[in-house]
Each structure stands twice: as C-alpha cells, then as structure tokens.
C-alpha cells in the first residue's frame, strides 16, 4: 500500500459533490459536443448532402418538372406555382432524411457496435443526458441541412418565385427541424431497442421513409389521393411539417387551430418518442 496521505472520507465526499455539479447541469451539451465532433469524420457527406440535394431537387423540379406542370397547384383554394408548392415539403424531407441517418446507425453503434454509450455512461453523465445529446446533435445537423435548403430557396427566388411570403418563410427552418425530430426521436428509441441488427434500418428506409416521402402530399396535395391512401399522410410527420412549411412560405389566411393541430402532432410524436427512448437508454445502459 502507498504511504501517501489520503484525504478523509468527508473531504472525498465534498470533492465528489463539487465535481458532480457541472456534469449534472451541462452533461447533455457535452454529449452534443461529442456527437457533433464525431460527425466531422463524415463531414464531407454532410456538406455535400446539405448543398447538393437542394441544388439537384430544385433545379430538377424548377427547370424540368415545373416546366411541364404549367397549371398552378390549388392548395387550400389558393393558386400557387408548382415549385412554390413543392419546395417546403422538400425542405422538411431534408430534415427527415438527416433523422433517418443520425438516429439509426450511430445509436446502434453507441449501444452495440462500438459501445461508446457505455463509455459515456461510466463518466458522470446520466443515461438520459446521452439521449439528449444524440437528439441535440442530430437537430444541429438538421438545422444545417434545412438552413442550406432555405438559403437555396432564397437564391432561386431571385429567378423564379419560391418563397412568396419571405416575412414568415424563414419559419420553415424551425418547422423542418421539428418535423425531423418528430420522425427522428421515436426512431432513436426504436434503434436503441434493437439488440441485433437484422437489416431493420434498411426496412425503415424502404417501408417507412419511402412511402412517407411519396404519399405525404409532398409532390401533390394530399387530398388528390384516394381516402384509403391519405392516412399515410395524416400519420406522417412529413405531411404535418410540409403543411406548416407551406403555411409559412405562402399561406395566407389559416386558422390558428390548423397551425396548432400540426404543431401539436409533431410535439406529441417527439414527446412520446422521447419518453420511450429515455426509458430504453436508462434500462439498456444499466444492464
């Protein structure tokens, strides 16, 4: 045994109480910092995706499809150009695409492949703070993706109208992030619940993300679809987000009730997903 003089138990206890203060308060942000740093490893994919996707979609639709669809879209009795109609939905899709990446494989890696969540958990961080950090890290990337989209809409607007109501149009950015989280947070909980990777994420991509993208009134008003297909839109955070995005970028008179309904739906999905995810993080990390 060493001959060093050791502090008393009372001193050690006081020291621990002092050391625990900052992690208890800021722990979620420390995990966010980690997640954002780890994203730098695939930083190029993020940047190219965030910049390339809007350019391709907007050019393809503005120059190609919109040229074909000369007839304006009638949305809530309001006539808008096709590009104006489709742009907010594409912006929201960008956030949801980020969610489908950031809330799946990194979560699985944290619990199983690389087990770094267990490393976080051995430090003063508490399990819910780890979930918070994952969510905040993904939200940061969504913000970049959606922000880039909005920037491109604004640039395109110099040539063809894309955002008729610039005064409220910027609200499409928080709306995009909110929709991304409404999809992503429950997905994080699901990813955390998976013990063995049997290709579940590929199934999510094919059977949840793709149908949602195609049937959520992204490319045409939802009521164009027969009623038996419209339900996909009703339950999809993409549709609720896209509707809010449309209200922000060109909507004129909408009732507060309609806005509240869409916002409320996104909030409920996020909160339910959070509660589920929090439980999974606590239980799985304590095993």
């Amino acid at each position, binding site marked *: 045994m060493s001959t060093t003089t050791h502090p008393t138990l009372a001193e050690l206890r006081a020291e621990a109480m002092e050391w625990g203060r900052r992690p208890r308060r800021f722990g979620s942000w420390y995990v966010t910092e980690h997640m954002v740093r780890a994203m730098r490893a695939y930083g190029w994919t993020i940047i190219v995706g965030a910049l390339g996707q809007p350019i391709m979609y907007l050019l393809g639709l503005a120059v190609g499809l919109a040229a074909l669809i000369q007839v304006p879209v009638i949305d809530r009795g309001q006539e808008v150009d096709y590009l104006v109609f489709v742009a907010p939905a594409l912006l929201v899709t960008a956030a949801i695409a980020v969610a489908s990446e950031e809330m799946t494989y990194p979560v699985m890696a944290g619990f199983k492949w690389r087990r770094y969540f267990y490393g976080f958990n051995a430090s003063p*961080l508490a399990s819910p703070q780890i979930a918070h950090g994952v969510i905040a890290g993904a939200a940061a990337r969504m913000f970049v993706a959606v922000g880039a989209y909005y920037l491109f809409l604004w640039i395109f607007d110099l040539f063809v109208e894309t955002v008729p109501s610039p005064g409220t149009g910027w609200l499409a950015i928080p709306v995009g992030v909110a929709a991304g989280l409404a999809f992503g947070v429950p997905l994080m909980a699901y990813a955390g619940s998976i013990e063995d990777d049997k290709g579940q994420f590929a199934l999510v991509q094919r059977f949840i993300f793709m149908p949602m993208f195609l049937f959520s009134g992204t490319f045409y008003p939802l009521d164009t679809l027969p009623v038996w297909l419209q339900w996909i839109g009703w339950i999809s955070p993409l549709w609720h987000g896209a509707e809010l995005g449309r209200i922000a970028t060109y909507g004129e008179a909408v009732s507060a009730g309609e806005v509240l309904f869409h916002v409320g739906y996104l909030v409920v999905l996020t909160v339910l997903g959070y509660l589920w995810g929090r439980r999974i993080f606590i239980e799985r990390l304590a095993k």
Partner: protein
Amino acid sequence: MPQPVISAHNLVKAYRSKGKPDFLAVDGLSFEVAPGESFGLLGPNGAGKSTTMKMIGAVSTRTSGDLEILGLDPDRYGPEIRSRLGVVPQQDNLDGELNARENLYIYGRYFGLPGKVCHQKADELLAFAQLEDKAKNKVDQLSGGMKRRLTIARGLINDPRILLLDEPTTGLDPQARHVLWDRLFRLKERGTTLVLTTHYMDEAEQLCDRLIVVDKGRIMAEGTPSSLIREHSSREVLEVRFGSDRNEQVAAQLQGIGDRVEVLPDRVLIYAGDGEAALERVTSAGLHPITSLVRRSSLEDVFLRLTGRSLIE
C-alpha cells in the same frame, strides 16, 4: 485504519426474467477497500466480478444490500461518484470515429473540465500511455494493447480517486501486459486506489495488496495473495503427467505423498512443502511420470482448492 473508500455489505444483484427463477449474479458480497489500496476480485468467467464492478462504478443499481463509494450512495449520487472514478471496462468502448487524442479530450469534457485543461491532460496522458506518436491516429488503427493503454489513459483524465479495471489485460500479449502492469504500478505509487477483476492469478499476485476470491456471486476467501496461498495451499506444488488415460489411475497410488493430491484431466498435482522430496517419493514408489515440474503455489491452486474448479476453463 482510514475509513474505507468503498464499503459493500450483503450486496446482491438479481436478474429477473419471465418464467424463470431470479438469477443471483452477486449473492451477498461484503468487503471494504481502504484508500490507496489495490484490491482484486479474482474468479472465473461468470463469477459476478463484472456485475460487482458495475455496481461499484455506479452504473448498475443493486437489488439489495448496502453500498457506499467515497461515502456516497450510488443510487442517489451516481454522477457525483462517477466524477471521481476512472473506469477501464472489459470491452474497449472508445469512439472509433475520433483519433486517440480527441478520445481523451472529449472524455475530459464529460467531467466538466475546461477545454484548455482537457487538451493539456490529453497530452500528458498520451505520454503516460506511451502513445504520443499515435495521437492523431484513428482508434481503429491502434493495436489491442495500444487501445487498452488509451482506455486506461482515458480513465485517468479526471485524476480519479479510484480506478476500476475490469479484466485489464485479457486478450493482450505478454509484452503488452507487462507494459500495462508497469503503468498500473506507477498509479499505485501515486496513491490511486485500484480495484481490479481478473481471472489471471499472476496478475492478481502482481497487482493486488488484498483480494477476494469470488465464485457464483459469493466470496470464497479473502486476504493478501500470500496469506491466501499460505492458508489454502502448500508452499510448493509438484505437477506430474502420466498420460491423460493413466492420470486418474496413478493418482490412487499417490495418495499420502504430500498434503493433498488433485487430479486434473491432463496432470496430477501434489501439494507438498517440499516438491523435490515429493518427487523422490513418487519415483521411489516405482512410478515414472512422463514429465514433472516443481513450482511455487499460486492463486490458481487456492481457487482449485476452494471451488474444485480451474480458473480458466
């Protein structure tokens, strides 16, 4: 005696699964660890060592019993306790997306250390772990021994009062083990309390001031390595091999030589104060082993005596 930094009394961890009786991974462990002590949990795989470590590490809650770490209850003060612990888990859980230095830096941030301090500590610890030239390497490019050293370095980022090491050298080659042991000795000299689990008896003998031998979640024996050997084994052991099909049969004729005879599938162990003398008695009885070896008793022998089983199965 100074107050213990870890005290466990009747510690129990039960795992419940539907339709099955509770599985008691830890079944009433009681022990105390003094500040600056190097304390070991020795036992085979599945003995409950890692589960105990997780409870001491304030990540897994106990089912019953009392547990205090640094004078605090881990159920209530988990973050506070963990802020003063260093943890080296059995499986490395470094972040492969980050390089060696970043892994240290970001871990320091979790303790609320300012960025500048984290950078400084990261450099110091890279030197301590002899990984300065690997600072910019992604973790995935490091060898097993280097990852282990980096994990230990990471566990030291907060100058912990207690360092928990779960099977620190499993899977490492002999040279890497010795480098690691050397680093742990240095920590011990600095007064860090070490708690380690191992199923290597040489490691326990090298590193532990005191240890408990654990099997099936219970303490089988407690003491210093030398006192355990003294108490539960003879000074020397004679190992003789007669061929796997003859060992059992010959063992009957060996009874009475030495204090005790133990038959393993591949060899017969004769516990005796003087191994050479025991060997002479074997040969004078007309028995000629294919190979023979006289060695000092080890913790392996203690474990075999206490449980009737070998540590590494």
